[in-house]
């Protein structure tokens, strides 16, 4: 197929840009570990309250791991447990979350913490809380009539 000289240059430029985008994303995701929350362990959604660690939602200090704390969240229509939590500034936290009923979102607006909580799956995300202040947690996937009232609060405090 014949192609105009300028169209060839344009497509080479365009495809090269896309390759650059993908390379940057690939290195950031696979080399620097900036993956979105992905493949995960499973859980019986009817037994969440009886299954560790979800039997005790909230913040737990851990030793000998790459993260300092585990922050366990249980979502259900239309609330999160815990509804409020304090975390020392600068700590590395592994958020572990699941849902007891329908799909919920787990988003800290203004951050990269943004995950889908789907029944039967445990999602995990590791991050370092390096900004002090109050952070909102909200549900960003429609879950029913009280969806927009579903929130929690994370307070990052200087220890």
């Amino acid at each position, binding site marked *: 197929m014949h192609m*105009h000289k300028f169209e060839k240059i344009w497509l080479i430029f365009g495809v090269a840009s896309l390759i650059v985008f993908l390379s940057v994303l690939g290195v950031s995701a696979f080399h620097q570990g900036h993956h979105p929350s992905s493949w995960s362990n499973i859980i019986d959604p009817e037994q969440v309250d009886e299954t560790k660690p979800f039997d005790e939602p909230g913040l737990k200090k851990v030793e000998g791991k790459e993260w300092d704390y585990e922050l366990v969240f249980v979502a259900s229509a239309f609330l999160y447990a815990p509804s409020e939590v304090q975390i020392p500034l600068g700590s590395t936290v592994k958020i572990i979350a699941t849902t007891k009923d329908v799909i919920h979102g787990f988003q800290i607006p203004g951050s*990269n913490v943004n995950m889908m909580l789907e029944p039967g799956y445990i999602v995990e995300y590791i991050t370092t809380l390096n900004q002090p202040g109050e952070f909102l947690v909200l549900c960003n996937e429609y879950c029913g009539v009280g969806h927009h009232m579903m929130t929690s609060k994370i307070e990052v405090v200087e220890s």
Partner: protein
Amino acid sequence: MAQTQKSEIQDEKVEKEPTLLGAFTAVMIVGLFIIITWAGVFILFNQRF
């Protein structure tokens, strides 16, 4: 019929390429716009925890 017309026309080979510098400049502006917006959000992603 439209089809026979078309194939007759197509038999004549391309003689010379039309000037398309304006179109080229326009798409390059589009390309730069895409790169700038993408880079902007990528920077935002890297600044956030």
